[in-house]
């Protein structure tokens, strides 16, 4: 399993040479600027397109996927070396963001549960960042109690006929594909009648409507299915086995959220220390000039470091083991709390300047901080809420029994 140092060094040289040759100098260090959230700046231009092309050809947009499905076929260790070489070259990998949920969640799940035909059909376009994927999980009446979902798919012999509604479908308005949890058996106990169905978004039976959130425009949509159709062979995993497939996908989601924000070549935002210095100032001995705030900032930064160290520890423990760690559930709540606390501390430090919605009296980073604060409220809701995560830890990790009074 473990490669020798010589092999790793050889790979490092290969990666360095390839980046020197193929990564356009005009894009150096511009990852964060060209790609914000899930959107690629349209002005990114020809060099950007060429770079995506090179990454796709080499398979290094999805470095650890098998080469037969468009991946790079690299080991975890090689992928780590590649990432280091990328940041050394101030390069970035935009493919994961261009594929929506394709690379972080759908891809690994198709690799695990897909048929050879499904893998061959869906994975190569994802690995090149050519198709954007959405996911249809939640419904208006199925949020934390996801298993009570009602959107149904009927077997019409040569196809599936889908009717119902999904919500919080991130990026559905520009997605080419959507992976949906649908009810395929209305008689079975609720978790046992669900399948994971893949639908082509480009059809008259599917309509999307964007949802405006407390922080303004968002990538979230409502998605309506009116006699939408899907090919017969687009069930991922077992028929009526969608609960297992769907849960597995969420583990990948939690893992990707936990490490979110890494790998895009750094953020332009100011650190909490810089903000404190700028908005609060320092006393004669160089301390932040508000003892209560300073103590709370220290407590927060310690929590953030503990969270990062936990990711490192779990990664080290799991090295060579492709399974998602059970501790991923712990990390999601910890990460959510760090993000939310950080954005609250940021606004607190900015005072009146941290209260703007729009307009020139506010600096752009101040307006951005307000929107981030609002957006951050979602982190403890999506992908399994704070409470659901704690249920999972209590039940699955600590082995506490389920209450008989609960549905």
């Amino acid at each position: 399993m473990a490669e020798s140092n010589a092999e790793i060094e050889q790979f490092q040289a290969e990666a360095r040479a390839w980046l020197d040759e193929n990564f356009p100098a005009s894009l150096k260090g511009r990852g964060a600027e060209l790609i914000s959230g899930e959107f690629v700046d349209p002005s990114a231009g020809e060099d950007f397109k060429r770079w995506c092309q090179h990454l796709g050809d080499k398979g290094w947009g999805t470095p650890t996927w098998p080469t037969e499905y468009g991946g790079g076929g690299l080991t975890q260790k090689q992928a780590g070396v590649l990432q280091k070489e990328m940041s050394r070259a101030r390069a970035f990998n935009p493919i994961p963001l261009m594929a929506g949920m394709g690379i972080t969640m759908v891809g690994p799940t198709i690799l695990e549960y897909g048929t050879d035909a499904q893998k061959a059909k869906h994975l190569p376009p994802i690995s090149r960042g050519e198709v954007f994927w959405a996911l249809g999980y939640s419904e208006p009446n199925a949020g934390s109690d996801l298993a009570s979902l009602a959107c149904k798919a009927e077997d019409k012999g040569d196809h599936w006929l889908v009717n119902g509604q999904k919500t919080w479908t991130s990026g559905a308005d520009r997605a080419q594909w959507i992976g949906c949890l649908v009810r395929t058996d209305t008689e079975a106990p609720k978790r046992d009648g669900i399948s994971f169905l893949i639908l082509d978004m480009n059809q008259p039976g599917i309509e999307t409507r964007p949802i405006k959130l407390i922080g303004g425009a968002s990538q979230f949509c409502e998605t309506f299915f009116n006699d939408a159709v899907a090919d017969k062979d687009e069930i991922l995993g077992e028929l009526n086995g969608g609960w297992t497939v769907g849960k597995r996908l969420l583990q990948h989601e939690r893992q990707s959220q936990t490490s979110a924000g890494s790998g895009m070549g750094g953020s332009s935002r100011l650190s909490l220390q810089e903000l404190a210095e700028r908005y609060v100032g320092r006393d004669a001995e160089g301390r932040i000039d508000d003892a209560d705030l300073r103590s709370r900032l220290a407590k927060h930064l310690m929590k953030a470091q503990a969270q990062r160290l936990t990711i490192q520890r779990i990664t080290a423990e799991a090295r060579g083991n492709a399974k998602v760690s059970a501790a991923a559930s712990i990390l999601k709540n910890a990460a959510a709390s760090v993000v939310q606390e950080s954005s609250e501390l940021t606004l607190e430090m900015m005072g009146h300047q941290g209260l703007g919605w729009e307009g020139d009296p506010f600096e752009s980073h101040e307006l951005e901080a307000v929107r981030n604060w609002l957006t951050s409220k979602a982190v403890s809701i999506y992908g399994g809420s704070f409470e659901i995560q704690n249920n999972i830890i209590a039940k699955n990790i600590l082995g506490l029994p389920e209450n008989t009074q609960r549905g």
Partner: protein
Amino acid sequence: MAALTEEQALLKEQASTWASEEAPVAKFREMRDSGNELGFDKGTWASIIELGWPGIVAPEDAGGVDMGHLTFGIVLEELGRQLTASPLLASGLIGVNALVIAGSDDQQSHWLPKITNGTVIATLAIDEGPRHAPFDIALRATPKGDGYVLDGEKVHVLEGASAGLFIVAARTAGEPGDANGISLFAVPGDSAGLTRTPLTPTDSRGYANVSFGEVQVGPEALMGNANDASPQLEIILDRARAGLAAEMLGVAGQSFDMTLDYLKNRVQFGEVIGSFQALGHRAAALFTELEMSRSCVEAALTAIDEDSEDVATLCALAKCKAGELLHLATNELIQIHGGIGMTDEFDAGLYLKRARTLEATFGNMAFHRDRYAARVGL
């Protein structure tokens, strides 16, 4: 748990088995009830010496095995789980490190073999007031002849009743509060003028206030150069804090396991109480803190072994996070057990008391939060 070497995994297993079979919490209770003034059982300490643990971080030519601090932390954590009382931390970790970091070749070859073979218990005498303040040192060391005269008081000295060697932080210049002007001395426990007042602390371990009444020492007692021992003292203290944090992880881990066990077995309202969401979520929160603290403690111990630049930051982080964790874990231990948790017959109180002492020793949460803040630019 960090990815362990085969050697470390074996040691962990050995320490866990030994502590739960030979030095379990019942034995600690027995020691407490016997009114033992040393604060540890001599037989237990003899076994620990036999096992070689006082030499885990000592150099091989001094009778040690030089296996590093992560390894030492593994043992301290396992002993912490059973509240196993012994001078291992004071002597094997702090005493050994003080000599390795600040001692001359002569001091090392004189004292280290005695510490690793258990004939001498070493300890650090630093604090003089109610709160940990490493530079608030008033105890004076005044040159006399070719040696020094030490005069002053040290309080709450770990294993102060049994120590045969005190590493004393003394002032040779400046005023209390100054980082400069501090020197370290290796002072034998039987020195004339040295008197100990053993304490009866809440955690029933061995502490003493130690008075130095014109204690005369020779030139061989001064460790390193006079007046500038602060940087070395900081390194010694950080290693002590990381070791304490490892023990705290063990005390918290056991407190959590006891709580979890109770949640799975206690029935009220016709249900196992662990099935109630209000309690399940508290268990989940506790588990999360446990995992986060473990990462910090292991990172600090590893940083010591790798001599990283951020040792001090990570030690402050580890001691503070372990403090937060232990505070929560022992309070929940009592609260979730309800009335039974309040009885002396049940072990919860023993864990709560040990937690309080560990938290206060060599800097509490506030102390380390302030240190961390200064180190990260706040």
